[in-house]
């Protein structure tokens, strides 16, 4: 059972199945079936280093060697999942992703920054960021534009013409 099905109370994350709860450092705090038992140190879940920076949550695989890159002047808009690899999203956007993502020049002349996180099994999580001065209608326009971009990327994948 993944802990993502569970619940957070205070600083503890609990499993939905039997309610075992875990602290920030991954050690088990409580086994509800045995309220008198102090869970042994050996019961723990894996943890990852996490940073929140410029409205984006960054997770490190392994020990991070640097702080997350700064994303000056942009604000997060939304996150969406495409049923394609990163390459098809890059092909549809006509740009390659670097350390601070990909800058996509959308049709309506807006610049949209995309952070691409491959999810394995041919899926890509796309985080969309916009200029922090953008208006409500520009934000709604950008949200619709990335829907079109996702469709284009998935079409490329379906037709087998993604790189």
């Amino acid at each position, binding site marked *: 059972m993944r802990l993502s099905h569970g619940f957070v109370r205070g600083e503890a994350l609990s499993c939905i199945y039997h309610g075992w*709860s875990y602290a920030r450092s991954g050690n088990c705090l409580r086994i509800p079936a045995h309220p008198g038992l102090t869970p042994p140190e050996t019961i723990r879940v894996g943890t990852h280093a996490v940073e929140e920076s410029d409205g984006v949550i960054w997770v490190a695989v392994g020990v991070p060697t640097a702080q997350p890159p700064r994303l000056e002047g942009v604000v997060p*808009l939304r996150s969406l999942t495409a049923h394609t690899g990163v390459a098809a999203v890059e092909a549809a956007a006509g740009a390659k992703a670097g350390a601070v993502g990909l800058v996509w020049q959308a049709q309506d002349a807006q610049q949209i920054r995309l952070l691409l996180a491959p999810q394995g099994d041919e899926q890509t999580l796309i985080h969309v960021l916009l200029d922090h001065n953008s208006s409500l209608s520009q*934000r709604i326009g950008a949200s619709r534009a990335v829907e079109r971009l996702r469709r284009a990327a998935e079409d490329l994948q379906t037709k087998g013409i993604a790189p």
Partner: protein
Amino acid sequence: MKLYDYVLSPSCYKVRLMAALAGVKLETRPVDFHPGAEHRGTELLALNPAGSIPILEDGDLILTESAAMLAYLAARAAPEWLGSGAPEEAARIQQWLSFAHRLTASLGGARLHEMLQRPGDIGALQAQGIAALRELEAGLVEQRLRGMRFLASDQPTVADIACFPYVALAPDGGIPLDPYPAIRLWSRAIRGLDNFIEMPGIHRLHELKPEPHVEPGEV
């Protein structure tokens, strides 16, 4: 008011949930949908020739469409759930009430196939379900940009109740909700409403209760 009800039906749950939120007490008449197929028996076909449930009976009034039941419960006891009447909001409510039929056909079809072995093209049902969830997600993202937490306004309306059950139960049909952060926030907002009730497949939000302190052997 009497609801012909099946505990595992998301459409029946819409009505139970709306009644709970609006503070209406319903008399429920359980229907043996599975395994008994009682909804296709003579007694229920006399009430609803389409052979579907829920059916809501109030005196002479017999309703067989869940959206109509939501509107009726709200109009009777909690008119704020029908929205403010502002043109854009009224249109959005109608938009999502109609959209809810697509959720029933796709997500509901996938769930019936995966859970109760009803016939269907599961690949197509799941693909249509994902398309509908993406549309809902996009709609909710735009609403949040407008500063609104729910489908038609910043307050929940009958449109939210019409869409919520099949969406929340999408995983029963093999369709995960992990890719939809706006849907998950919206679902959480609905589950956190006062007088919210669950149905099987929608777990309690245990985070709303404090961590219990109990001494061993107290039980």
